[in-house]
């Protein structure tokens, strides 16, 4: 996990040194005298050799100091902090909903294998998975916000809403009301993967002997699927979570843009369009850090769900 973060930072360092133009051009005023200009260069450490700049950069990033945003004129860290909370609130809600629905429906479809109903469900799922997530968002906005006027056009809160605390903000009805359409669009996008995996795994598990034993014991179908098949089929879904998260972040960026959600993804898009490099760099770093941390937790969850991994297979 630490190595990955380290490499991401290094990639960022290299990439942002490739930026065309002098990085000092925005900070230095041409009217400054040459001595002052030199002082500014020194202040930012740009007269040091490259490896020292790299060390300095590393040091700053570890302290979460990404410099000052060109656009807002404030330290980047402060801006990013708020955005991170907004992003996580949207992302985790969508994740919980889609993984619950996905694993349940997947197990259900695995059980119904071969039937006409399953075939139709399968085609529907593949079709939903093919839809670009930002377009789903646009269509949802068109239908539910512009035509039916049921939901707000975007953003995170109404104009009149005020809150006493952060906590209250995320529990208010107004916030939930703004959350519905983005979560709907994101969930539609996220659900496909756990669902398809779950279905395939259940198909595989159902051929095992212990399922037959359970059937012979006269257990109800429901009990077999949920207690015997689903429990064992869920493992690969957890591993796949790690791979899925990279794609999920992409969906997050798109949905935040469509719904003007003041999160990290939208901030990253805006910062990049405005050539606000410090902010773009910081948002990219945090998005990667989310991916890497989630990967780490997926590994932990895996060892928890499958005791064999922890015990090194001794009991088998």
């Amino acid at each position, binding site marked *: 996990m630490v*190595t*990955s*973060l380290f*490499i*991401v930072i290094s*990639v*960022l360092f290299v*990439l*942002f040194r*490739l*930026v*065309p133009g002098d990085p000092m051009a925005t900070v230095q005023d041409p009217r400054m005298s040459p001595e002052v200009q030199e002082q500014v260069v020194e202040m930012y450490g740009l007269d040091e050799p490259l490896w020292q700049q790299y060390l300095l950069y590393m040091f700053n990033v570890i302290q979460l100091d990404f410099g000052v945003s060109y656009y807002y004129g404030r330290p980047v860290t402060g801006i990013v902090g708020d955005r991170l909370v907004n992003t996580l609130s949207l992302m985790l809600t969508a994740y919980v909903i889609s993984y619950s629905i996905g694993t349940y429906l997947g197990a259900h479809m695995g059980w119904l*294998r*071969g039937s006409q109903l399953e075939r139709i469900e399968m*085609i529907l799922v*593949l*079709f939903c*998975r*093919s*839809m*670009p*997530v*930002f*377009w789903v968002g*646009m*269509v949802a*906005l*068109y239908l539910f916000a*512009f035509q039916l006027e049921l939901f707000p056009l975007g953003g995170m809160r109404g104009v009149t809403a005020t809150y006493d605390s952060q906590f209250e903000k995320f529990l208010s009805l107004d916030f939930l009301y703004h959350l519905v359409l983005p979560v709907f669009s994101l969930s539609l996008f996220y659900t496909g993967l756990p669902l398809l995996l779950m279905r395939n795994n259940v*198909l595989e598990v159902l*051929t095992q002997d212990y399922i037959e034993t359970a059937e012979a014991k006269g257990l109800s179908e429901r009990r077999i699927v949920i207690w015997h098949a689903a429990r064992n089929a869920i493992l690969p879904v957890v591993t796949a979570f*790690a*791979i899925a998260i*990279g*794609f999920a*972040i*992409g969906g997050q*960026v*798109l949905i935040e*843009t*469509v719904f003007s959600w003041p999160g990290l*993804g939208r901030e*990253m*898009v805006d910062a*990049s*369009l405005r*050539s606000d*490099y410090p902010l*773009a*760099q910081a*948002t*990219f770093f945090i*998005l*990667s850090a989310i*991916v*890497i941390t989630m*990967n780490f937790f997926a590994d932990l969850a895996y060892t928890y769900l499958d005791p064999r991994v922890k015990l090194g297979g001794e009991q088998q």
Partner: protein
Amino acid sequence: MAVFGLGILIFYMILAIFAPIIAPYEPFERIIADDGSWKSLHPPSMAHPLGTTESGHDVLSQLIYGTRVAMFVGLVGAFMVACIGTAVGMVAGYYGGLVDELIMRLVDILYGLPFIPFVIVLATILGGSIWNILFGVALLYWLSTARVIRSEVLSLKERPYIEAARASGASDFRIMFIHILPNVIPLSALYAAIAVGYSITAEASISFLGFGDPSLSSWGTMLQRSFVTQEFATSWWWSIPPGLSITLVVFGAYLAGRGYEEIANPQLREGR
């Protein structure tokens, strides 16, 4: 269903190849009404089956030209993913040991780079172009292909016929290309089919965010224009066709890929 998927792909392929003949207008041709004003946001009519955009472009023509971009990105992307993924997977699986360890570490690390943000950074630095998107696809989408090919090669290389080839003095290179490659090609092809969809969605997403090539009429840039002008709220004929086209092509590639998988791997057909 696989035939249906293939049908969709062929349909869009024909549109892409014959775009200049089929499209009634140039993608960026401004259509002027009789009274000299732009035909801005006209709903579908006989002259413009899918209406016009806010700057007076014909939606149908833009859509048809967009097919070219999508097909180009889809095919080149899929080709790169299949080549890189297969090559890396084969080398890792065949040589094993330290080589395998290093490659798999690299794969793990690259999984930490989220695709869309990464391409945004590229586009910020290098400027918007279709090549950034393809570079991003080539760099980050081969990972799962390589993993799957690797595990397939791991089991293949223990087979007796590989041992026989080695005993008769075949070089590593020869064993990999003549004896192992033909056996993993079906898997690569399946992943290539999936990569067609991913690449097209990737291009559309990046263009939608405004980091695409502004001189090209792609489905993503069409959606971006209709979103930025906020006209998707009124002109459904402008935003629905490109989105639906993306969906259909990606869907078609999925179906064709699954169909191919069933042909290449008959075990899948049992129990259905």
